[in-house]
């Protein structure tokens, strides 16, 4: 039998461990900085002015709270549970990523850092980082896998318009993992003046906790909005997972509500049977990468294997350590959907709701599609629509064999 903790919201411990996961697996050069960052984050948490500035920017710059939306026609089409969406794709820059970037750049400024670096996969985090850097007048370098640079051209141009330097990374499979390696290399060489804005709830402590906290605005709002609109909490929360920040942002404020079930959706790519997927939890095993211990796609020697997903934002061989812990504890259920299923869900949402979702939340929508029909019509599914699909129309057109 599993030990049920008193609270699922009390992680990590003082060393940044989520059970057996997390931690600070970084080179010695970075350790003093990571410890500084933690001290500064604690001070910021205790400083009402920090929260005030964060909230003010979220309201007036990002456009929060994001709406809670009942997807009536999708619900009808699926014929089961009511489907609701948290509309984080309506945020400034088109995804949930900006919530975290606002928090981290305020910290960077507090710490007196004068240069920002970040990695990006789909480009959403890169765009959000470039955006806050423009807003606060800090120079910014974004590392992006060369493969992703090709498949996410619109976001590359956006970043450049915003004044960022975009550095294509050609090592490895030239995707998100390799961009993160290059970000770490830059960071270690420029610790004195550089702040690394990590885009997901992963990396060395305190990043997983900090990113989760900044993203928790999603779940906090959703909780209040649900209570106000229907007078109760949802039965099932659904969110896609690459590194897992949008999912944690939605899930975390509900973790201690035993009646709220949660489903994290990984990218099954071409299927979990082969190696062409990005499902670290369902198809991987625990190991150490990019500063934390977590589930990874790896071979028996601990070499990291390349993930695959139609969605550049989910194409990462690891996952935030809190998800690893939530999986082992059984609090959150995890599943995976394939490229084809996500593509179908993408089109379904376009036609039923007039919303073009990003390919990342299209994975969540595909999972909703599977679950909703087996649930009673008075039950409520709340899914996080964490990004809009404008950036993906070229990828989708290519998959559908359409020339644009």
């Amino acid at each position: 039998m599993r030990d049920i903790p008193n609270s699922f919201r009390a992680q990590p411990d003082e060393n940044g461990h989520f059970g057996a996961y997390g931690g600070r697996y970084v080179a010695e050069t970075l350790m003093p900085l990571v410890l500084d960052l933690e001290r500064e984050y604690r001070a910021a948490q205790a400083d009402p002015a920090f929260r005030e500035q964060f909230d003010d920017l979220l309201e007036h710059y990002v456009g929060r709270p994001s709406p809670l939306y009942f997807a009536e026609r999708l619900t009808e089409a699926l014929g089961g549970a009511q489907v609701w969406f948290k509309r984080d794709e309506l945020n400034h820059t088109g995804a949930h990523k900006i919530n975290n970037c606002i928090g981290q750049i305020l910290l960077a400024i507090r710490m007196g850092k004068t240069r920002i670096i970040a990695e990006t996969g789909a480009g959403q985090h890169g765009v959000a980082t470039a955006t806050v850097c423009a807003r606060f007048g800090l120079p910014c370098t974004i590392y992006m896998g060369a493969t992703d640079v090709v498949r996410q051209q619109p976001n590359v141009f956006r970043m450049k318009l915003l004044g960022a330097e975009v550095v294509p990374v050609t090592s490895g499979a030239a995707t998100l993992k390799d961009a993160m390696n290059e970000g770490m290399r830059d960071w270690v060489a420029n610790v004195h003046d550089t702040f690394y804005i990590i885009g997901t709830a992963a990396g060395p402590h305190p990043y997983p906790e900090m990113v989760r906290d900044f993203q928790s605005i999603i779940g906090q709002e959703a909780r209040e909005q649900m209570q106000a609109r229907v007078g109760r909490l949802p039965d099932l929360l659904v969110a896609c997972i690459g590194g897992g920040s949008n999912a944690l942002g939605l899930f975390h404020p509900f973790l201690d509500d035993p009646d709220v079930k949660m489903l994290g959706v990984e990218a099954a790519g071409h299927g979990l049977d082969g190696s062409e997927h990005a499902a670290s939890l369902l198809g991987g095993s625990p190991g150490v990468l990019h500063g934390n211990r977590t589930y990874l796609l790896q071979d028996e020697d601990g070499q990291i294997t390349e993930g695959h997903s139609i969605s550049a934002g989910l194409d990462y061989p690891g996952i935030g350590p809190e998800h690893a812990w939530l999986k082992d504890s059984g609090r959150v259920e995890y599943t995976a959907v394939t490229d084809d299923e996500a593509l179908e869900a993408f089109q379904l949402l376009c036609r039923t709701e007039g919303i073009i979702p990003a390919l990342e939340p299209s994975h969540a929508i595909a999972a909703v599609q599977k679950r909703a029909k087996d649930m009673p019509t008075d039950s409520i599914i709340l899914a996080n629509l964490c990004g809009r699909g404008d950036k993906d129309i070229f990828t989708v057109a290519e998959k559908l064999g359409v020339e644009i």
Partner: protein
Amino acid sequence: MSERLASAFAKGRPALVCFLTAGDGDTAANLDALVAGGADVIELGMPFTDPMADGGTIQNANIRSLAKGTRTADIMGMAAQFRARHSDVPLVLMGYANPMVRRGPEWFAGQCVKAGVDGVICVDIPPEEDDALGPALRSRGVAPIRLATPTTDGRRLPRVLEGSGGFLYYVSVAGITGKQQAAQASIKDAVARLKAATDLPVAVGFGVRTPEQAGAIARVADGVVVGSALVELVAEHGEDAPEHLRALTASLAQAVHAARKD
């Protein structure tokens, strides 16, 4: 096992530590060339898909080695064969956490003992995560060799030293392996600070390429580590690498061994 390391630093002169990536080229022949050239300590790099602390030269060596299909078992085999050929030259494994802890720390430490490995340098296990590997190594007499860097301040240094063994590896630049060089004055000050805090020998690495640089550092430190410059020779000369490695190692060794302390 760490006696071999201790005696390498107790020859009454500074020690030359030479790094190569395992499985990149003919590792046995290349390591023998380092020994023939006068290397006092061998650092054998375990290739990893994601070498986050390495510059282009060693990244590429990692990629070449893995592309040839180098497995952990092969690396342990190379170490064991080296030990059979060179009973008194210390051999240290250097690499990243994941390949080391994949089958558990006890397994890895046991393999090190079997292969005659004297010490282990793990780039991404800081003292804060020592439990991931340190106890398993120490209980078997394999030295956990820690890194100190320009960012390791006095407050933190005791934590780095606690539980470390073999020698202390001073990373002279805040950065990745490769071509940047640290100023001689900063190295001298840093080594003096480290020596005041520990009895372990202090070896200095990162960005050391030429006999002149190595000789200058050897005047203020107990050892000098050279990596990328040697790995470049393997990349450039392939199966002819041993003669080039031997020549560079010999000139480095001459400069290091002859250095007089300031």
